[in-house]
């Protein structure tokens, strides 16, 4: 059975003064069960809109999103979303937030079973000792973990990550990336992620889907990432292959951003966000 298929998807919005704004057009790709796919692109290119359409929070203006051979019409717990800014309800404790999801999805299970389920997933993400705290009492990383546990506790077929690590500091982000990878590997999850971090996309995914700039954005290139799993951060970041992938991505994103054709490549630029790990190792 086909897992996730995105067929000729287009999306436009009606702006009160500017009229019809084309955001996405002609989006085609598919995803297999168990894959980790990342969509990367400049901010405003419509990646989050694409994720919302996969979730069912938004509907395409043209084409269709098919999940397990059924057209996506509305959100369901089988496609759990980990939101960009955690979106925990501030008046509920950590476990209260997870229980809200569990209660809604497993209505037929006993109270005890539901509680055990919530506790299990909070333990998995390492929040055993913080279950009864409120979101404002825990750190940003812990909040994002709670969001992760909430999504996992729903027992989803597909996890949708909407830039879940974007607001975190570098060290916390790395930690959460590693844990998400571990979960993906151990729990055999399928993950569809949206991000604007090149390193994150390469390190975590099987495929990096690169979007060019909006308006009317579409898929420019799909990069297959061929690192074995489970992945080891240091080994991957130090490898020549990583630098190669990285240059591919950056060349694409920068040439499209400036309206170029992709050739010739600008030299990889070290920025605070994406330092060059292995200088001189890029074969591009």
């Amino acid at each position, binding site marked *: 059975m086909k897992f996730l298929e995105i067929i000729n998807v287009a999306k436009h919005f009606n702006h009160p003064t500017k009229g019809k704004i084309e955001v996405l057009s002609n989006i085609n790709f598919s995803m297999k069960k168990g894959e980790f796919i990342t969509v990367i692109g400049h901010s405003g290119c419509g990646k989050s809109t694409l994720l919302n359409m996969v979730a*069912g929070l938004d509907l395409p203006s043209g084409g269709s999103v098919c999940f397990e051979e059924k057209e996506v019409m509305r*959100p369901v717990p089988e496609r759990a979303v980990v939101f960009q800014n955690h*979106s925990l*309800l501030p008046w509920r404790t950590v476990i209260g937030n997870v229980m809200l999801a569990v209660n809604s999805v497993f209505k037929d299970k006993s109270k005890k079973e539901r509680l055990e389920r919530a506790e299990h997933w909070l333990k998995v993400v390492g929040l055993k000792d913080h279950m009864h705290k409120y979101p*404002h009492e825990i750190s940003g990383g812990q909040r994002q973990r709670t969001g992760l546990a909430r999504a996992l506790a*729903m027992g989803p077929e597909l996890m949708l990550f909407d830039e879940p690590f974007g607001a975190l500091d570098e060290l916390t982000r790395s930690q959460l990336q590693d844990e998400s990878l571990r979960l993906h590997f151990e729990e055999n999850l399928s993950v569809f992620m949206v991000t604007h971090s090149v390193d994150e996309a390469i390190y975590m995914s099987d495929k990096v889907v690169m979007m060019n700039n909006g308006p009317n954005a579409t898929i420019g290139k799909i990069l297959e990432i061929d690192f074995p799993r489970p992945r080891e951060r240091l080994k991957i970041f130090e490898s020549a292959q990583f630098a190669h992938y990285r240059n591919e991505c950056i060349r694409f994103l920068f040439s499209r951003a400036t309206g170029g054709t992709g050739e010739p490549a600008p030299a990889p630029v070290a920025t605070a966000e994406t330092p060059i790990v292995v200088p001189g190792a890029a074969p591009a």
Partner: protein
Amino acid sequence: MLNKIILYLNVLGLTWFVPPLKMVCGQDVAYEAKRFVRMIGLPLIAVVIFLFLWHVIAGQVKIKGQILPGPVEVTAAAGKMYRDYQASQANYVTYQADFAKAQTEYPQMSETELRELMPYTAAPTYLDQIWTSLKTVFTGFVIASLIAIPLGILCGMSAAAFEMINPFIQVFRPVSPLAWLPIVAIIVGATMADVPANSFWAKSYVVAAVVVTLCSLWATLINTANGVAQVDKDYLNVAKVLNLGWFGTIFKVVLPSALPQIFNGMRLSIGVGWMVLIAAEMLSQNPGLGKFVWDMYQSSSDDTLALIMVAVLTIGVIGFILDRIMIALQRMVSPGAMLAVR
């Protein structure tokens, strides 16, 4: 422990008590003393200046051969009212004793029969009148909230519903209680013609309460609609992904999120209600503070003005206390305030 008490005091809006508490516990005495002087000392100075000016000016003004009552006369009037209250309490004790005696003398009569034969006929005391006013405003306020909150949720959830209800809000909100009162009085008078005047749901009581409702429900309605419309879109997306359904979304996401705003509206409503109540009571003759002011205005004793001033101060202080209670309730339901106290 101390920090927790201070947090509670802050949440409940009783910030005045924080500096003395900290001073008693020996924390930051110099700083807290300064704060205390600012918080209590400055208002106190202003009050003293006001009382002094009032006293001086009142002594100069003559109305119909009487001086305008100053703070001294008003205090005296309050003292007289308190003695009247004590006298009527004593009266009541005597009546109860008489009644008990009558019960032993005529054991064949039931209590209700006997009460009808020898009813307690004294006029209501000032405290009774305050109590009646509070009951009336509370009744009107509860009815207003029961109407305004569900309607407000509807308006906040659906732009179409808001467009439909908005004209009524805009047109009826500015209507004065004095304009509503005759309409309400005629309708209530016709529908409740058989209700005896001394029952709990006396006509005058219902009229005043309904007028309070009509004038106070708008603030709650508008604020509830606003609060519901402003619920974070991410929370609504969470509700959608979790398949909470219409009912679950309202009770688990929308209401808790809009609660601080709803309480803000209710606070404004009870303020408006208390203000409107006095006028409503004057015209409907509901035996509360409004009727007291009206009766004093109609009688022409020497201390009429002083007694009305006592009533004005009472009304102001009660309004202030009601507002404080609503602020405390609002803070208790606001995330971050009460949650921090836990």
